[in-house]
């Protein structure tokens, strides 16, 4: 029982991280129908930014985290401005291939700047309650480290904030308008390029949070964006690409499937199990769990 409880916690933490990355994929797709393959690399840069701020500039973790979000938001907007905006009218395939190119450039850039060596936050630079000794004892002998609780709560808070932002604010309304019909939105006086830039900024900032969380829990390396990015992309597709609520639940589902699959079925096939679930869902509901069918969207 304790084991099962701990596996569920493991799955929720991983799922929360995937959800944070997946919303970045899904928001950009929702608004410009682009699968932003460079998003996994933005996530990776988020981890490195925080790492450099903490170790190089000796900033406290609580300053480094929002700064890293800000830097990644700027990086996301920059990528949109340089690489995707000129291709707005071009066929979708051109932008897609550009995204793959940007992803490779960023990954190799990180390797050149920080080397391929794995890094992790020095434990003395982190708030005390992040250290592994500090855990809540749960009934049955299971433990819940404060750090993991923090990751789950932070993911939930950010998700709810994002949801409210999209449905209750003017900018959220503008985003939804752009997602429905960009040309019409433009005709109504919405500055679509600005809205798209803000979408990139929000998605990238959330990706940065995920990157820092993975850096806390696992390790920072130039290839981290690929592995987590692919799983998060699967989560976005599972939830229905373009749908933010779908990406959140998709992330949690993929995270749980991966951990429970590895814990109880076979650890060698952990991602395979998650993908099989995704494929089954797509077979039954081609537009994903929360996605609208193509005819309705149009």
């Amino acid at each position, binding site marked *: 029982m304790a084991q099962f409880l*701990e596996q569920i916690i493991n799955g929720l933490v*991983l799922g929360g991280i995937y959800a944070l990355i997946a919303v970045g994929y899904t928001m950009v797709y929702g608004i410009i129908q682009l699968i932003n393959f460079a998003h996994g690399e933005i996530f990776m840069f988020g981890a490195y930014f925080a790492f450099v701020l903490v170790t190089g500039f000796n900033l406290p973790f609580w300053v480094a985290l929002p700064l890293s979000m800000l830097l990644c938001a700027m990086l996301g907007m920059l990528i949109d401005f340089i690489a995707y905006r000129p291709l707005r009218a071009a066929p979708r395939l051109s932008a897609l291939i550009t995204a793959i190119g940007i992803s490779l450039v960023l990954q190799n850039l990180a390797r050149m*700047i920080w080397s391929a*060596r794995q890094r992790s936050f020095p434990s003395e630079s982190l708030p005390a309650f992040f250290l592994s000794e500090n855990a809540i004892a749960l009934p049955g002998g299971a433990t819940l*480290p404060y750090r993991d609780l923090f990751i789950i709560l932070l993911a939930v808070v950010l998700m709810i904030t994002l949801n409210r932002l999209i449905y209750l604010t003017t900018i959220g309304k503008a985003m939804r308008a752009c997602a429905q019909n960009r040309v019409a939105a433009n005709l109504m006086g919405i500055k679509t390029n600005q809205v798209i830039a803000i979408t990139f900024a929000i998605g990238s900032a959330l990706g940065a949070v995920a990157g820092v969380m993975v850096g806390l*829990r696992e*390790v920072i390396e130039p*290839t981290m964006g*690929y592995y987590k990015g692919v799983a998060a992309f699967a989560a976005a597709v599972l939830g229905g690409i373009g749908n933010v609520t779908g990406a959140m639940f998709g992330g949690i589902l993929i995270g749980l499937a991966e951990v429970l699959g590895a814990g109880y079925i076979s650890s*060698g096939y952990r991602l395979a199990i998650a993908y099989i679930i995704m494929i089954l869902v797509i077979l039954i509901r081609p537009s994903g769990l929360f996605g609208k069918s193509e005819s309705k969207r149009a």
Partner: protein
Amino acid sequence: MKNDWLVVFLLAGIIALYGCQPASQDTREVQKELKVAVAGPFTGNAAAFGEMIQRGTELKAKEINAAGGINGMKLTLIFEDDTGKGKEAINVATRIANNRQILAVVGHFNSTCSLAGKTIYQRTGIVALSPGSTNVSVCEGSDWAFRNLYRDDFQGKFIAKYIKNVLKELQSVAVLYDNDDYGKGLADAFTAEAEAIGLTLVASEAYDRDNTDFKAQLTSIKAKNPDGIFISGLYGQAGLIAKQAREAGITARFFGGDGIDSPDFLTIAGDAAEGTYLTTPFLFGAGGEEAGKVAEAFKADYGVAPDTWAALSYDAVGMIAESIENTYNESATFSENRKAIRDYLASLDTPGEGYKGITGLTYFDKNGDTVNKPAYVKIVENGAFTTAPLQMLSPE
């Protein structure tokens, strides 16, 4: 922000420039270059090994050239990065095999890469001398594959016996293995021996090289409460496993093969590395006077102490250089020269004919394997590798 690669490149550049100068006391003109490829994981998950391989081979080449080269010809190393992945190793091997100036290959390092390159080297006819691949079948079925260290069937058995017969107090073990040729092969050898000698195997879990989250496997293992965990993989994942296991509240002792024998294991695992036992094919402490000198020269050049892999790579270049020295014929074709190197290495099949390097005597059996070299045990104490107080030099 420390920029390690920049330092490496600068050092490499300085050494390259230095190597190009004819030694001042040597009046012979350096006429011609002899090219040898060094294939290893210079980037990617095993890059810490690659760095040591690069430095070890460069040091040996520098020493050879400073002493007048090979029969007056300069030895030039060509570094090829296989990233530790089989797919990339195939590209690298093809590129090397088709380069009609390269006489022999030192590499690959990862077993998966050596296995991937084996058929290509065999088909083209060029020697690949590995300073690190330990999977059982690396040399099998190829006349061109050699290695200068033990195989995993030996290593896996060794660790199981060490746990059972030397440490004695451990009853049950769990195995976590990297799902590639090295990790799986070593885990299989360990598991077979552990079961044969009466260690209780409570769990055997695989992981993927790119993974960095092992909580799922570790939570399963925690429920089985083993006395020891044998990690059959590379330093990066092993470091994370150790760290995450301690976080999950697992108190078992860690064991590892030579794949975790890198200082990076210590930095990644942090305090969790403490008390970890690992096997290694070579210890500078157990090496002779010659090894000590090389270690000093290495430290002078690179500012860090050499590790096992630097030493084995150093010796591998030495062996290839000796082969070239004894067989190279300028008027012969390149494939004849490649063949002559192979024949020379294959003829080193008795202790009397073996190559005396800093890692001891190397000679080959009919497969090209080295079967005489012992395994040593290291332990992590106060954040550093030290020779374990109990060794097991005759595992039988």
